[in-house]
């Protein structure tokens, strides 16, 4: 990894002014990004981790010149994105998850060829790269298929190829495996890892809300929430920051009002809960193991039954919970926290 910076932001902000009828709770301004400072050296695979609405896509849109910042500055490949957007575009490409771009009546090959023309790539080179990349992602036998015949996974593979076709210096991957099955996601992640490993002069900015994806792929991760970067370090260092605490996962029969039950307990730093198939999964970050017995007592007193108990190594989700105060998973209908004063 070099010390040269591929991307840099300084107090980068983006504020949207909401129309009166759209304003939430009377607020007329929506702060999508709030004074973000980042430095990403060349050769890094940098992850941006956060829930939906955290500001990940807004940041990518600014860096890819689709959106202007309302405050601060940003540079990509040393070029100011607001002053010289056209110059920036020579250095970048982007792949978004859940894309439906392309022309249905054209084949995979034709769509990809068309996009290479926007980058001035000659026909021979374009066709060679298309073939190579389609082979790598396992789509070569569908090269002559029209796009509207492709499944979602195949379409995303095609979009992936489109992003890598131009061999960009800096590649933005915005939730690239969103909505894909395990197999396809695995294939694409392997592809990304391999691409970065073989090209130390290339940089990737990956946004995701899948913890394991960030842990598996990224050299460094920034955790973003409500438009602000809450932490930025290697996944290992972030997890080590929680090593002083102890993490437990308990599965119990469904209990009501878990927030009321656990929030006053000594030693509980943070917790979150999820209802899964009629059970409640409780996730605790404790000061130490002595905080566990009172939790078990409370469960018993509230007529709950302990189904399983696991002691865990801290994960990025735990880091997220400790920073933000709740879990990352959006399907948690009833997450709650204790406000984490150490007891």
């Amino acid at each position, binding site marked *: 990894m070099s010390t040269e910076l591929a991307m840099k932001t300084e107090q980068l902000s*983006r504020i949207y002014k909401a129309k009166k009828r759209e304003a939430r709770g009377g607020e007329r301004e929506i702060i999508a990004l709030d004074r973000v400072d980042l430095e990403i050296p060349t050769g890094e695979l940098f992850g941006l981790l956060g829930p939906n609405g955290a500001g990940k896509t807004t940041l990518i849109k600014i860096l890819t010149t689709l959106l202007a910042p309302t405050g601060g500055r940003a540079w990509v490949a040393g070029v100011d994105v607001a002053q010289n*957007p056209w110059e920036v575009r020579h250095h970048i490409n982007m792949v978004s998850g859940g894309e*439906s771009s392309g022309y249905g*009546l054209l084949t995979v090959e*034709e769509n990809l060829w068309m996009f290479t*023309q926007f980058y*001035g790539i000659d026909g021979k080179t374009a066709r060679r790269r298309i073939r190579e990349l389609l082979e790598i992602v396992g789509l070569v036998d569908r090269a002559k298929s029209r796009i509207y015949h492709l499944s979602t996974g195949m379409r995303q593979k095609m979009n992936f190829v489109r992003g890598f076709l131009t061999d960009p210096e800096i590649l933005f991957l915005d939730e690239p495996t969103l909505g894909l099955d395990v197999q396809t996601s695995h294939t694409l992640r392997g592809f990304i890892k391999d691409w970065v490993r073989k090209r130390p002069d290339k940089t990737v900015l990956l946004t995701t809300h899948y913890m394991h994806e960030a842990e598996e792929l990224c050299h460094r991760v920034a955790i973003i929430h409500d438009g602000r970067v809450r932490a930025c370090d290697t996944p290992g260092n972030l997890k080590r920051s929680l090593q002083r605490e102890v993490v437990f996962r308990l599965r119990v029969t469904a209990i009501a009002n878990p927030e009321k039950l656990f929030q006053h307990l000594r030693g509980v730093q943070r917790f979150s809960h999820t209802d899964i198939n009629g059970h409640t999964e409780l996730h605790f970050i404790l000061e130490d193991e002595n905080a566990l017995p009172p939790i078990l007592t409370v469960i018993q007193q509230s007529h709950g039954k302990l189904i399983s108990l696991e002691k865990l190594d801290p994960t990025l989700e735990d880091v997220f919970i400790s920073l933000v105060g709740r879990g990352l998973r959006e399907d948690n209908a009833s997450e709650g926290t204790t406000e984490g004063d150490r007891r």
Partner: protein
Amino acid sequence: MRSPTRWEIFWRTVMGRAYPRVIGAQRERSWLFFETLLPLLQVSAFVFIYRAIQAPPEFTGFVVLGGAMTAYWLNVLWSMAAQLYWEKETGNLELYIIAPTSLMAILLGMAIGGIVASTVRAVAVTTFGLLIFRVEVSVVSVPQLLGVFLLTLLALYGLGMLFSSLFLLYGRQAWHLSNLLQEPVFLVSGFYFPVRALGFIPALGASVIPITLGLDAMRQLLFPTMMAQFHFLDVRIELGVLAALGIGFLWLARRALSYMEALSRREGRLTIRGQ
């Protein structure tokens, strides 16, 4: 590998973007029916209106020519002006913008693709219209006729590019604007009657739409005797104005596109969908 020059990127983009238009039309051929037979029937309606009121036979020729040119006007309104709106909705627009190419090149590619399809329609309407209704033409000058036609297209598609910059910002509101421009332009540009009938000043105002002068000039070059009493301006003047309009619209389109793109980027409208 050598980096491509700016011009290389420009021309490759034009060809690349024209490709889906040309190929797409070949892969689903239902348009052949809708773009040839149906417009011919529509033109025939106006021919019969003139027959019902016993107009001179040259007026049939006026209508056939006007009907042929509607192909280009509709193509400009819906496949140029509105196209960036559709591209935004499907997510293609953001991919165009982050590419190191210009929106002018993208639009030019669309224009070329659109011209191919519209020309099929225009040729079908003209040929069958002239044959079926037995219209007699006396071509004054083929080079002038070709010149008028090409300059009209240049100016017209320049105007289309200008409209497309509005759509970049205004989304569905601009779709309604396109709708609004359909019939009124059929009226003021004299698609179905000599524009001189509107009066000199209104016709002058309407001349900002390139088809107005284009149609008038083509009618003069094809039906010189009848147009002697109905023509608006001399053909040479109309040629000059069309050339100026072409250059003017293309320049304005370039300015407007970069202004609108910057404005859309500031207001976050480049990626809004579902309007």
